[in-house]
């Protein structure tokens, strides 16, 4: 299978942002493989146009497959474009998985991928135990297979720092042992189950398991695997399921690179409960035990609460009277969600797109990190027309289908859960309280002092690597150069003697904000160049950047450095920090391309006053 896929690109097209939007729409509408293959080629041609490409984040991707990858790669590529990523892809020769990973100076290692896909065809799984094997034998097989899969990943990760996404395995559509297989550890289905559990348990932090088994459970293995195309072309996933498989891979790649939605905006009437609270009253709405529909709405609330518990922020956007809209959350005993589950509660009669825009502003989050859920198709239409960046999933007209409709989109994929994720709603609440406190204060310094802030400035430490990676990748506004990194690069910076790295943790009397700012740079001669400086917008205007600046100057003096260079790359989202270096006393030097360069002699550096106490 050395041939390449035919590619056709219509060169006479004028690619524009409009054509791109049309493409995104067509892609979502057409789900069958042949149509997607055709659209995929068009997407690729459009993505290389400048006005589209500048919105896409480049990613170096390696694909190692134990079977044929050619058929699904164009679809994966298009799904990545759709997710805002522009891949340059290295594809290892057919079946060369372990050998590619283990070759210390092979093409793959030199390609230095940020993300490496290890795609496992179950039909090529090595090391099946005999059907009648004992439990101990099977356990040995599981150990052996796990090692053979994970050891090469470990070598490769040590050398290149690449994050790895690995398929797990699915059962076959047949079972020679029948039901008795459930009691036979060596039965192929039993073995695959054990293997998947062991892989999940043993995969190190940098190996992200792509849960093929879970996809197959939803679709059914009879649909997932087509023996004919396996025998003819070693195609491991049926063509009907290639779109789903590709999308799922694109989502996990996006999650590894820190691209995920952050906030879920919810309508109330007929979305969180049945009926209209303003008309039907507290006793008239359907929620909870007592009616089948009420149970369906309650189940939906339980699902949303789970999203919140793993770090998704919730907000309400409803056309309602505020006091009436709030009443079920306070007085209805069957409600699962309560007022403090939401970071914002907006009830107005304005168009919902306006309200969502206001929510985004108030939360300091970009619109493309929002998902809007509403039962009313007209409202969904209004929002997606006015705010194309916001994701608006379709809901069926039956509440029993809401969970699946939302979950199917898999908008909130994450590669890891950090402490900050689990605390996020509390932190936003505290931030609102501080804003309200600010409203009652006229003297900013007095207000800042009243916050009783304490900060800890540290170099990068292993315990923070995950959060640093996440913050670097998610921050768009207070971000001078908007780099995108994988964890291994953070790890490397931490141990590099020529690098200067800093994190800032902040707490005040309302909340522990956790790790909210990151800076790193490199020393060459007697100059420190700051390669990245970013901060969570949650703590804007607190003086954290000045505190960090003071610390950097101290470090520069301790190392005997004489000059500091800072860079600013405008992205369209980081206007907030246009004058960041200017305000710290730097002088603008020259413009190289779109990057501004600012210089400061260490001898001239001021020490800024802040209202933040430093603690070790």
């Amino acid at each position, binding site marked *: *299978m050395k*041939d*390449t*896929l*035919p*590619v*056709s*690109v219509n060169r006479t097209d004028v690619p524009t942002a409009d054509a791109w939007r049309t493409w995104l729409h067509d892609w979502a509408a057409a789900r*069958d*493989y*042949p149509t997607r*293959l*055709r659209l995929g*080629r068009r997407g690729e041609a459009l993505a290389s146009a400048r006005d589209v490409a500048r919105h896409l984040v480049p990613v170096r991707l390696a694909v190692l497959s134990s079977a044929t990858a*050619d*058929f699904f790669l164009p679809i994966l590529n298009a799904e990545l474009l759709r997710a805002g990523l522009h891949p340059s892809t290295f594809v290892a020769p057919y079946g060369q998985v372990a050998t590619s990973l283990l070759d210390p100076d092979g093409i793959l290692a030199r390609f230095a991928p940020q993300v490496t896909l290890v795609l496992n065809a179950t039909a090529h799984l090595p090391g099946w135990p005999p059907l009648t094997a004992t439990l101990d034998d099977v356990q040995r097989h599981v150990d052996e297979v796990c090692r053979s899969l994970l050891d090469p990943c470990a070598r490769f990760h040590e050398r290149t720092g690449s994050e790895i996404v690995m398929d797990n395995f699915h059962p076959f559509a047949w079972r020679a042992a029948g039901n008795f297989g459930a009691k036979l550890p060596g039965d192929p289905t039993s073995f695959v189950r054990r293997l998947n559990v062991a892989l999940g348990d043993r995969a190190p932090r940098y190996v992200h398991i792509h849960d093929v088994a879970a996809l197959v459970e939803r679709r059914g293995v009879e649909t997932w695997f087509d*023996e*004919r*195309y396996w*025998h*003819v*072309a070693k*195609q491991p996933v049926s*063509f009907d399921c290639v779109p789903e498989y590709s999308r799922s891979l694109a989502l996990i790649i996006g999650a590894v690179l820190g691209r995920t939605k952050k906030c879920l905006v919810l309508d109330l009437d007929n979305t969180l409960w049945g009926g209209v609270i303003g008309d039907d009253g507290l006793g008239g709405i359907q929620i909870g035990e007592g009616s089948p529909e009420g149970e369906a709405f309650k189940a939906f609330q339980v699902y949303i609460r789970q999203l919140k518990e793993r770090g998704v922020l919730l907000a309400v956007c409803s056309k309602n009277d505020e006091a009436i809209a709030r009443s079920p959350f306070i007085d209805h005993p069957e409600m699962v969600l309560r007022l403090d589950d939401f970071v914002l509660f907006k009830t107005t009669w304005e168009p919902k797109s306006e309200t969502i825009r206001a929510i985004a502003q108030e939360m300091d989050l970009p619109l493309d990190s929002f998902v809007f859920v509403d039962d009313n198709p007209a409202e969904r239409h209004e929002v997606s027309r006015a705010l194309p960046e916001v994701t608006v999933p379709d809901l069926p007209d039956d509440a029993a289908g809401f969970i699946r409709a939302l979950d199917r989109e898999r908008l909130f994929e994450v590669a890891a859960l950090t402490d900050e994720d689990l605390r996020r709603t509390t932190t936003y609440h505290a931030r609102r309280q501080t804003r309200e406190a600010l409203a009652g204060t006229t003297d900013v310094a007095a207000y800042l002092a009243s916050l009783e802030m304490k900060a800890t400035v540290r170099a990068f430490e292993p315990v923070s690597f995950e959060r640093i990676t996440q913050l670097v990748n998610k921050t768009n506004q207070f971000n001078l150069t908007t780099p995108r990194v994988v964890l291994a690069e953070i790890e490397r910076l931490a141990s590099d003697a020529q690098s200067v790295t800093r994190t800032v943790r902040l707490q005040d009397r309302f909340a522990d904000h956790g790790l909210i700012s990151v800076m790193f740079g490199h020393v060459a001669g007697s100059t420190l160049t700051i390669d990245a400086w970013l901060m969570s917008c949650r703590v804007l205007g607190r003086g954290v950047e000045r505190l960090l600046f003071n610390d950097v100057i101290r470090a520069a003096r301790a190392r005997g450095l004489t000059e500091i260079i800072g860079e600013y790359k405008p992205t369209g989202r980081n206007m907030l920090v246009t004058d960041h270096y200017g305000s710290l006393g730097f002088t603008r030097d020259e413009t190289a391309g779109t990057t501004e360069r600012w210089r400061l002699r260490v001898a001239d550096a001021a020490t800024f006053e802040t209202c933040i106490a430093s603690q070790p």
Partner: protein
Amino acid sequence: MQDQILQQVTEIIADTLGLDDLTLTPATTAADVEGWDSLANVLILVAIEKRFRIRFRTGEIAAMKNVGELIDRIERQLSGRQTA
């Protein structure tokens, strides 16, 4: 019937191979058409299965002598469905 199928098959193959202009006859073989290699062949058959809602047998996917044979096999499946 055969002509109709030939027209649709030509459309699918041109589309799959990214060719603007393609003329096929029952005697045309894969070797006669630029880009119709073993990978493209799978894509063509997948698209045909989808369009006509038929299923080729494993042996048929691997080896079809020429376009005429392809059309025969499509027609046989379609008429089999009508009589069944």
